[in-house]
């Protein structure tokens, strides 16, 4: 297909005429973004969900002004209705308010996990891919070992060692995902380091650290950031699983996984106590994955 888009260089053999596509203006870029989103209602919905979740995490009282930890006992275990959109729990607390206020805890843990994985994995991968030889060998064996222990078991082992709590769970989840980042970063670094344009840079006398900074890092950043967004979704799931198992924040706090664990006792009678926080998690993860996919290909392809 691409060959159709490349026109031959010149109309006159004596002097190469230069056919220049006009560079896109700012307005055209916005128009392109608008067109892109217009054709993808799913992506728009995903962005809206993520914005809402971020709002809930940073200014929860904007979306739910009530107190997540006090309830009216008389109103306990009410099904979703106009007054309580997500229903109420066994103490009569409004579930919607609790979910909104739980966002900051869940997101904080997720963010820590992603940062740990990104920084540690990224550095390992960069080092292995750029230095090569025995450094690469050693680091990649380490990564193989990390990969050979299923993520959740590795997290559990770390929790056994570190103890309970949201931050510790987050660190455990992050360390369990280091291997994935290290692999992608190494693959990208090696691909770019061996690319012709890096060799070209070296052959015009560019020093290795300059080429690392100016060629390798910027070109490797894209795929790694896509992975980071994807990892964000996976980390939400992992963190909520661990708090469901009871290793996260202690009971009164409305962390999403803990909410579902609480609701489990009322499964037979009050379905919403599990369903609503679960749907919130699912919607968040789905949206994050959708955005990751958009970053991965559609935006660059649509240009």
């Amino acid at each position, binding site marked *: 297909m691409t060959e159709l888009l490349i026109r031959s260089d010149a109309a006159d053999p004596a002097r190469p005429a230069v056919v220049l596509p006009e560079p896109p203006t700012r307005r055209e870029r916005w128009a392109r973004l608008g067109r892109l989103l217009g054709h993808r209602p799913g992506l728009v919905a995903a962005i809206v969900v993520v914005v809402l979740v971020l709002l809930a995490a940073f200014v929860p009282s904007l979306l739910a002004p009530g107190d997540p930890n006090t309830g009216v006992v008389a109103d306990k275990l009410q099904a979703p209705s106009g007054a309580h959109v997500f229903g109420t729990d066994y103490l009569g607390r409004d579930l919607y308010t609790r979910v909104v206020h739980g966002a900051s805890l869940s997101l904080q843990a997720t963010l820590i996990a992603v940062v740990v994985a990104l920084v540690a994995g990224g550095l390992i991968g960069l080092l292995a891919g750029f230095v090569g030889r025995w450094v690469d060998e050693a680091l990649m*064996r*380490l990564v*193989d*070992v*990390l990969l*050979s*222990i*299923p*993520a*959740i*078991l*590795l997290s*559990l*082992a*770390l*929790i*056994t*060692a*570190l*103890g309970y709590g949201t931050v510790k769970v987050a660190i455990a989840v992050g360390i369990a995902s280091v291997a994935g980042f290290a692999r992608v970063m190494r693959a990208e670094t090696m691909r770019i380091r061996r690319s012709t344009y890096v060799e070209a840079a070296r052959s015009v006398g560019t020093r290795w650290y300059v080429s690392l900074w100016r060629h390798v890092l910027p070109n490797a950043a894209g795929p790694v950031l896509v992975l980071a967004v994807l990892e964000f*979704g996976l980390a939400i*799931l992992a963190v*909520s*699983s661990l708090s*469901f*198992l*009871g*290793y996260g924040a202690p009971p009164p706090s409305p962390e999403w*996984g803990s909410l*579902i664990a609480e609701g*489990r006792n009322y*499964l*037979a009678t009050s*379905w919403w106590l*599990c*369903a609503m926080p*679960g749907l919130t*998690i*699912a919607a968040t*993860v*789905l949206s994050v*994955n*959708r955005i990751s*996919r958009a970053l991965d290909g559609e935006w660059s392809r649509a240009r």
Partner: protein
Amino acid sequence: MLGYLLRRLGTAVAVLWAAYTAGFVVLWLLPGDPISTMASGGLDGEPLTPAAIEALKARYGFDQPLIVQYGTRLWAAVQGDLGASIQTGRPVGSAIAEALPPTIQIALGGLLVAVVLGTGTAVAATSTRLRWLRQLLMALPSLAVSLPVFWVGLMLVQIFSFGLGVLPSVGAGGFSALVLPSVTLGLPMGALVAQVLAKSLTTALDEPYVQTARAKGVGRGAIHLRHALQNAAIPALTVLGYVAGNLLAGTVVVETVFTRPGLGRLTVQAVGVQDIPMVQGIVLFASLVFVGVNLLVDLVYPVLDPRIARGVPAAA
């Protein structure tokens, strides 16, 4: 071929040793030592006397230098002795062996669900000519991987046990008790298989050799089965190996949701009381399974792709 096999086997053993060492470093070095946890009343008992602590340390070998401890434990582990549980005092190995049978049942069930669902969805999605159906089938796996596993389990219980009353919600009795846990375990893994297989099938169908086959006059279905599937199977097989290796980990959540006995529950209990030898034993066992499964996968590769069997990359 023999060289390939031996190399794989060597790598597998090395990874296992390293996994054991990693487990040792994390579990025995990070928090001090488990005796201190016990001594401070980490278990429900009262704090121990200094003499009792010394006795315990001697019993578990904590009075030795670290490197000696590591050596002794590694040597014991090689001989199959994973030490004794701090919680119950029973050998870790036999505790794992006892917990295994019900876990194997749902693990196999989950694997079956994952393979059937995964390949079915991918093949259907890439072979249908209906645009809407293809898009729907392509979207389902990414939906499924976004759902929290424990929540899916609870919702299935809600619908099939409490709502329709057709399947039991808890326990380990009989075939019907296996269905919901297997589906819960297999669903996200099947989605993963479906995503990878659909993607590699799509890639394979775009390859020039498919064009060659079409130019011969071969039909769509035959191209799918005779040409694309075998070429697309390798990435899918890699993922399947990963999935199968992770089945044990999945049972941690699933067995908790369905209150089934098994290895997953054993893990949750052991983590709950910081039973370090037990956790380490389970981690080692899980990576043994992972390495074993992937060794198996490595042996299947050459059957699917003759280029791997000769040990040479495709040369022009």
